[in-house]
């Protein structure tokens, strides 16, 4: 088991290195695109900034609190994107039949799909998320202590799992339809976009859905309450880790999709 994992990590590293070497063939283009990616995501930040120039708070959350919330979610998303956004190109892999080539190799399909294309220019967005995160943390009026730091780390782990699970679901759905995938954007990009505000802003029902169905609230709202001293119950520190379970149904759907692909051959 351990050996297998080590071997998989090694192969992943090999894929990464071959992707880097490919990207470096077009250095200028690579850096310009990465720069573009870096600049893009400031849009959302500017939106928040200008709204708070006009308003002093949203449902009891101040500007610096919203900023912390936004920057943590952004980093969760970017981390997941680095690892799992290879699924972005999955529709074209299915359409052109390159997924067949994945299936004729004796390795885990997910590993191969992720490895086949790293969108390395996303490093620009990643950097932007890191900058935002540093800004958000330093601007927050939070008294940081060990428990709160751990809470943030757990949020990043759990959030990365939730978003990765969603990317996996997106890819799994490609086996059934290549057209109707746009609504998945609500769950991925939409969650990043609207996750900038604490989920309670969207009402009780939304909080319920994001607690039990797609566990965004576990990696955003509840731990945030703990960090901002709005709720001091210590179990909230570990709530984000529960969200990792989301990977189980996501993976099951993927397996189901692969089996469907093998019987329909589409």
């Amino acid at each position, binding site marked *: 088991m351990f050996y297998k994992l080590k*071997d998989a990590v*090694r*192969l992943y590293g*090999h*894929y990464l290195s*071959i992707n880097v*070497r*490919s990207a470096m*063939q*077009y250095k200028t283009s690579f850096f310009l695109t990465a720069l573009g990616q870096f600049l893009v995501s400031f849009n959302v930040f500017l939106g928040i900034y200008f709204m708070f120039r006009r308003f002093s708070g949203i449902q009891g959350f101040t500007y610096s609190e919203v900023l912390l919330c936004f920057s943590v979610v952004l980093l969760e998303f970017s981390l997941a994107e680095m690892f799992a956004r290879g699924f972005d190109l999955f529709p074209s892999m299915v359409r*052109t*039949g*390159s997924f*067949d*080539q994945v*299936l*004729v*190799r*004796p*390795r885990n399909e997910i590993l*191969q799909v992720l490895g086949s294309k790293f969108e390395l220019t996303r490093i620009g967005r990643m950097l932007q998320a890191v900058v935002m995160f540093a800004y958000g943390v330093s601007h927050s009026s939070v008294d940081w202590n060990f428990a709160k730091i751990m809470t943030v780390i757990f949020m990043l782990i759990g959030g990365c799992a939730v978003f990765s699970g969603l990317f996996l679901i997106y890819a799994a759905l490609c086996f059934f339809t290549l057209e109707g995938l746009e609504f998945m954007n609500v769950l991925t990009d939409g969650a990043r976009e609207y996750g900038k505000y604490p989920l309670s802003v969207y009402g009780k029902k939304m909080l319920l859905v994001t607690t039990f169905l797609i566990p965004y609230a576990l990696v955003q709202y509840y731990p945030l309450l703990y960090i901002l001293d709005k709720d001091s119950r210590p179990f909230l520190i570990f709530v984000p880790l529960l969200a990792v379970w989301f990977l189980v149904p996501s993976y099951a759907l993927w397996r189901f999709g692969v089996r469907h692909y*093998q*019987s*329909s*051959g*589409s």
Partner: protein
Amino acid sequence: MITMEHVCKSYKIAKRNAGFGEAFKALFHREYEVIHALSDVSFTIHDGEMVGYIGPNGAGKSSTIKILSGILTPDSGTVTVDGRIPYKDRMRHVKEIGVVFGQRSQLWWDVPVIDSFELLRDIYAIPKETYHNNLEELTELLNLKELLRSPVRQLSLGQRMRCEIAASLLHSPKILFLDEPTIGLDAVSKIAVREFIQKQNEVHKTTVILTTHDMQDIEALSKRIILIGKGRILLDGTLEDIKRGDAGIDETVAELYRAYDIE
């Protein structure tokens, strides 16, 4: 040994008609069509055989290759390859086969060929010594020495195909599937590829299944031919069984297609 017995496979596809009105209608109502890609296909291929699998486009060639390589599950019938059921035991199965899809590349476009080979070494977990020996032999036979260090995008189609074939043999598979390996190649490369395939089959006893539209491939390579049309096996025999008199093989095959009413 490869056996297929009474294998059937059909697909359902959406019909699309041309025109503005039709496109609008299709918004609300869509018609489907069932295509029988394979109906009751049976054959046996022994170890070390070289078989040419021919037929017009859409006859069922690639469905067969997909089933044999474990990518596709048939609707009914039984398939075994060396005792394995390819689509049930895919991971174990694909270790023992090599596949070249002529129209697609398994090489990385922007990096030297050798980098792709090394990645494949890790993917198949090929032992060091085996990898070295195979690489040396393939380099020699396919004349790759000059090519290994150049990025794939700089290679000609013929050079690329030689590399593709080498890539699919690095892990010493017992069975090799070649899907139109000579498509679009110049005369020199075609001959080089054919000679290599022949040698691979003779020396390593690799079972080769080859689909092609190029009848010269068939003449040069395979003693046995399976002709498929509209999902059925029409003929399973030797080149001599097909040939009639002095007519060239292209004419003979075209004649056969007409006789069976397939295009």
